[in-house]
Every structure is written in structure tokens, then in C-alpha cells.
């Protein structure tokens, strides 16, 4: 049997596992709840929807961005869980290369996350059509960037999962890296008016900054005193940064997984 055929089997059953887990439906619930809170919350407080359709699209796209972060919860146990949960004593006894296992698991995680992102952008499109009767082109760009961001978050989580003893460690380390470490350095660099496009948290902002109307809201919200460069995003550089995280962390996770032993 070819490794490609084995890859197909691993992806199928790993995806089935995701479909059976509550966390998939929890993340779907969060995405829907956030979108609903915007769609219902604004009229509830007698606030009109923004005149600029791209501002509304940006607000609604935040829910889909959350799905990308939700990727951490799908991938945290992908590798570490096999060791910690002892399921590796069954899976690693099959005549399958570790590389094939990692790729299959990655594809299954990505499919699960992409499904939620698709749902999130589906809500964005239906809502915009219902309110404004049109969908701006930026939604497509944001969607592609969101898929790329999810891929890079997954790769980063796989990397931490390949070197962590346990699932919790991998999940916490990934979230700490994105939100605390990357986020803090981003803040410092913003204040110092230095480029920070290479940080994953900053690169991820590109998903909503592609909407001009939402970017204007962000600029207003940042207040006086923030350097001009703080709200300037080069979308191409951000995409390149995300792609770099995706590729490097993915290969590192394969590297460490291949060397890891069932002690």
C-alpha cells in the first residue's frame, strides 16, 4: 500500500475523531454566538449598523478569526496526546511512517478548522447580503488570509505538541506564544514605531485590516499618541510571515515527531 493511501486513511479517521469531539461544536457555537452578538447586539442597543459595509464585514469576520485560534484546541493533542494518552502504543505499531502520520493529522485538523471558518464567512456573507444587499471583495481576501492564519496557528501548535509531554502544555504554550509573547512584543514594537509584521499576532490582524472601514475604526480606537506605523499593515508581508510560520513549524513538528520515542 502506498504512503499516499495511508495518508488518506489517517486523514479520514482523524477527521472522524474531530467530528465526534465536543470541542468542534463548542468552537462552532462560539463563532455563531459572536456573530449573533454583533447582529443582534447593535440593534438591541439602538445602534445602527455602520454605513460602511467593510466596517460591518470586519466586525463580523472577527468571529471567523476566533475559529483560527480554536485550531489550537484541535491540534494541541495531535502529537502529544498519542504519547500522553498511550494511544501511540496502538497507532505507532502500524507500518506507517511518522511523517505520514503527522501530515494526515495536520490535514484532518485543518479540514475541521476550515469547516468552521467556512461557516463563519458564510455567516458574514449572508448577513451582509441581508443588511446591505452586497458582499465586498475584501471578504474574499480576508477569507484567504484567515485560512492561511489557521494553517500557521495549526503548524505552531503541532510544533509545540511534538515537543511537549502533554496536551495541556502544548495548548498553553501555543496560546502564550501567540497572545502573550507575540502580542506583548508587538505592542512594544508598535509604540517604538518599529515593524512587527513578522509576529504571528500582528500578521493575523491582516484578516480584518483588509477591510478599510474596520481599519478606520481601529485607528480611531487606538487613540492619540500612537505612531502612524502602528496601524500600517503590509498585507503581503503579513501573508508571507504566516506562510513562513506554517512551513517552518510544520517541518519542525515532523522532525521532532520522527525522533520522539514512546518512553
Amino acid at each position, binding site marked *: *500500500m502506498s504512503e499516499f493511501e495511508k495518508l488518506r*486513511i489517517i486523514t479520514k479517521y482523524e477527521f472522524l*475523531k474531530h467530528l*465526534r469531539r465536543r470541542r468542534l461544536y463548542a468552537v462552532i457555537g462560539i463563532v455563531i454566538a459572536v456573530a449573533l452578538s454583533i447582529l443582534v447586539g447593535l440593534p438591541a442597543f439602538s445602534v445602527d449598523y455602520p454605513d460602511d459595509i467593510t466596517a460591518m464585514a470586519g466586525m463580523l469576520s472577527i468571529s471567523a478569526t476566533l475559529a483560527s485560534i480554536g485550531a489550537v484546541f484541535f491540534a494541541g493533542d495531535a502529537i502529544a496526546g498519542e504519547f500522553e494518552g498511550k494511544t501511540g502504543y496502538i497507532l505507532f*505499531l502500524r507500518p506507517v511512517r511518522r511523517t505520514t502520520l503527522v501530515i494526515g493529522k495536520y490535514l484532518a485538523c485543518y479540514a475541521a478548522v476550515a469547516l468552521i471558518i467556512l461557516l463563519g464567512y458564510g455567516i458574514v456573507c449572508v448577513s451582509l447580503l441581508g443588511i446591505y444587499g452586497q458582499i465586498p471583495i475584501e471578504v474574499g481576501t480576508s477569507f484567504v488570509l484567515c485560512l492561511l492564519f489557521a494553517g500557521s496557528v495549526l503548524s505552531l501548535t503541532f510544533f509545540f505538541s511534538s515537543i511537549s509531554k502533554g496536551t495541556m502544555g502544548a495548548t498553553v504554550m501555543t496560546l502564550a506564544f501567540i497572545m502573550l509573547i507575540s502580542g506583548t512584543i508587538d505592542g512594544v514594537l508598535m509604540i517604538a514605531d518599529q515593524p512587527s509584521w513578522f509576529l504571528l499576532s500582528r500578521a493575523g490582524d491582516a484578516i480584518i485590516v483588509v477591510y478599510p472601514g474596520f481599519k478606520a475604526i481601529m485607528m480611531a480606537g487606538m487613540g492619540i499618541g500612537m505612531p502612524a506605523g502602528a496601524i500600517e499593515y503590509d498585507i503581503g508581508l503579513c501573508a508571507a510571515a504566516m506562510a513562513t510560520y506554517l512551513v517552518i513549524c510544520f517541518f519542525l513538528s515532523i522532525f521532532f515527531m520522527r525522533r520522539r520515542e514512546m518512553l
Partner: protein
Amino acid sequence: MREAIVIENLTRYYDGFLALDNLSLKIEENEDVALLGPNGAGKTTAIKILCGLLRPSSGTAYIDGINVVQERELALSKVGAIVETPEFYPYLTPEETLSYLGKLGGIRGRELKSRIEEAIKLVRLEGWAKVKIEKFSRGMKQRLAMAQALLHDPPILILDEPALGLDPRGMVEVREIFKEARKEKTVFFASHLLTEVAQVCDKVAIIDHGRLRAYDSVALLKRKYRSLERAYLKLTEAAI
């Protein structure tokens, strides 16, 4: 007769601790050999290396003539194994689990279906085939572990204390399944339960502190030391 398993000068350190010290063994086709030794003797380490789960510090091992260290996947295709107390994905049923593992082992279509049915019947899990494993007891999981080891009808079985953690009834059940399944197979079986070994195996390799102390037939060891128990105690007394 062909050699099904060959272990050559296997040595393994864990951060400076010597767990396996130049272990060498040859097991011929269709032989049932027990690897006997006290806790921490190096049984599980030897089995993990044979199953490609650990790398040796030095030495090597062959399964059906295939070098496990260099051609892990090919060697594993000849083996059915239970190592430590394995766990299963709780969200899947035994049928789904065996289907997943069987497909990865290269079994397809009707053959896979009938093998799954046979394996589930052999381990007496017929009524539980479509129930998620999250509801299973330790004993049921151990029976499922036997099913996955036998699923692809491998010529070689490597079992690491398959009755570990089971109650007396569970131990008897696993032993019965094992007796039924081992026909025309080479069995390499780690244990520290003398009664289990005496009932199941023809030959015994006794190890202690990672070193081979004796490798002979159960009958010969009984004759030489008057009982298997005395042989075990005498040969592993350094551990006491």
C-alpha cells in the same frame, strides 16, 4: 528452522541508567518464548525496541530477517503487538478502531470486514462492537488490544504483559484468547507471572538488570532448578 526474532547485543541507556545490557536472543519460527524478569529488568525496553517504539543505544534486532531499527515499517507489518497498557481513541467504536488499524495494515474490503468480525468474536466483544470505547472497562480494552494485535493475522506476536492490571477473571480470559490465537505463530511474551508463563510458553528467557540470565525450555529449567519458581528466584536473586 527459520529465525523469527533475532536480538543482537541490544543495549539501551536512559539518561545514563543501563536498562538493557548486551541482550542477545534468537527465537525460531512458531516458538512460544517468554521473557521473564522482575519489574525493571528490561523486559518492556526490549519489547519496545523490537516494536520500533524505542531506539537501541547499540545493537540491533531483526523481525523475520528485517532490521527493525533500519526498516521499522516493513518489520512491523509482520508483527501483532501489545505494549504496556494501550489506550484507544474514546470517540471511536471497536469496529471503527479495527477498521482504521486494519486499513493501515493494508487489509481492505470484504477481507477487512470478515477479519474484524473474527477478531471481535475471538475476544468476545460482539455485543460491544458498535459502542464507543469511552464506555469500556480496562479488561474490555485489553481484549480489544488482543483483537488489534491479531487483526492482520501476523506470523509473529509480541506481547508485553497482556494480563497486566486485569482481575483474575480477566487474566484467565486473556490467557484463553491467547492460547486460541497463538496457533502457527511465533510468540514473544514478556511477563513476571510464573504461572502464566508455565501455562503458555515452551521456552523462557530470564533477564535481570538488563542482562540475560538463562534461556532454555521450561521443562529443562524445571528439571535443573526443581521448579520454574526456584529457577526464577535463583537467577534473579541479585534483584532481591
